């Protein structure tokens, strides 16, 4: 009797492990329109309204817990911010005069008041209703989907900067793959006229990105800003339009006999605690980017 129980127990374990392995391999090899992905989307469609309701109902509790955590962090950040304020005050005066000049040039070129970089895009605001619990998948689920005009590969931003792009949609929800996900790579330009590279994440550290493919003879300084490069060769192009702010260079080091520099970037968007995002839908067609 006992042996029979043991055999049954082992059979269940092995059976479930085999099913899991089959799911992993099918999930990788199957096309987006395959039956397994359809089941997945079906489950997601059913769960997303429940997630949305739970997310709204539990927000006060979430804010309370996060408040405690942020208070601890804020103590450390305070000193650094004091230094930054002093630096920014001196930069403000320069920036104001530059802005006045910029407005004059815009009028001359008849570009209007709209944000030039994102002109032509429609912004769809979505609330974050779910999030992956591990550092290995930096994805969030938002409550707007194909029903609101959101499509795969649409860029996603917050008021602070780039967040990621849409990688899957259902009618009422979408999956956003953040720029800190290990599958993410964003082509970026260093401002004002710096070189272009590729921003990649460092798994385990959501507050740090790495800018790769910058030659060691290029001069990159701490504090320089990064925006999306938005390149296009005519047949292939980046999924992101030019000019979306990504982050600031926090450290640039050149290793001995290294071809490329090791550049760390601090993202502007607080990717750990985003509540709302904007999806940039429509816009100019980007060749080679599937919709």
């Amino acid at each position, binding site marked *: 009797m006992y042996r029979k129980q043991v055999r*049954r*127990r082992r059979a*269940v*374990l092995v059976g*479930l*492990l085999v*099913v*899991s*392995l*089959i*799911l*992993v*391999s*099918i*999930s*990788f090899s199957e096309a987006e329109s395959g039956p*397994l992905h359809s*089941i*997945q*989307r079906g*489950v*997601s469609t059913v*769960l*997303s309204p*429940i*997630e949305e309701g*739970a*997310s709204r109902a*539990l927000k006060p*509790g*979430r804010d309370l*817990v*996060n408040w405690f*955590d942020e208070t601890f962090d804020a103590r450390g950040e305070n000193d650094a911010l004091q230094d930054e304020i002093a630096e920014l005050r001196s930069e403000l005066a320069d920036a104001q005069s530059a802005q006045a000049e910029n407005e004059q040039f815009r009028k001359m070129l008849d570009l209007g008041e709209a944000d030039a970089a994102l002109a032509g895009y429609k912004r769809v605001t979505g609330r*974050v*209703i*779910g*999030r*992956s*619990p*591990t*550092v*290995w*998948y930096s*994805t969030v*689920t938002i409550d707007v989907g194909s029903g609101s005009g959101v499509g795969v590969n649409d860029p996603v931003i917050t008021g602070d900067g780039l967040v990621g792009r849409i*990688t*899957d949609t259902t009618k009422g929800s979408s*999956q956003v793959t953040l720029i800190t996900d*290990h599958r993410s790579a964003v082509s970026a330009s260093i401002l004002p006229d710096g070189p272009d590279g590729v921003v*990649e*994440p*460092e*798994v*385990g*550290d959501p507050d*740090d990105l*790495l800018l790769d493919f910058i030659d060691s003879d290029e001069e990159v300084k701490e504090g320089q800003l990064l925006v999306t490069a938005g390149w296009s060769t005519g047949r292939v192009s980046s999924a992101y339009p030019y000019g979306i702010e990504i982050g600031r260079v926090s450290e640039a080091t050149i290793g001995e006999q290294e071809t490329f520099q090791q550049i760390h970037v601090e993202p502007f968007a607080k990717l*750990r*605690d985003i509540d709302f995002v904007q999806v940039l839908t429509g816009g100019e067609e980007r060749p080679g980017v599937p919709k």
Partner: protein
Amino acid sequence: MIITPRIALRLALIIAIAVVLQLSFFSLLSVLGVTPDLLSVVIGSLGLLVGAVAGAVCGFAAGFLLDSALLQTLGVSSMVLLSVGYLAGRYREGFEITNSLVAPLLAAGLTALGAAAFSAIQLMLGVETQVSLLVLREILLKGLIAFVLAVPAYPLLRRVLRPALVDDSPARRRILSAARLRSRARRRGGSSHLRGGAPARRVRGVAS
């Protein structure tokens, strides 16, 4: 453990609620820079309460729901969580839970193990970026937070599943109370002829 339709329904509800809470609440929290892992705690606790087979099935179902809701690679979370449920169940089948700290400690250990297994699977599946040493910190802190979460979660789940638990069945309670009476009698009089579950009245008579 006998899984009746009512208990199966309770288990399904527990899993569904845990997945929704994980996605909509715990995954959006940052405690010491880490996301608390409620699902591992719940599956570990279920394994401890319902045994290895049911624990593994619950883990598989929870993982499937989680991966589906997040539209991520199916099977990875299932594999990790079914192992957590199975190992917790095997512990229950092999050892007695004599101390109230056993369940939280086990939940902490299994959560850390699950996080490490998840990392190993991801590395095997091919992560093309650099992996920070902070992943280790994440694994350890997740275990620590799981300990705190398991302190209320385990008794709560035990309460919900009480009708199906062998430990709490009347027969089990009768055996336990008889054993308690025997040991009390031994402490009072130390008589060696009180074997085989003597009734309380007789025990007292002999001792006095």
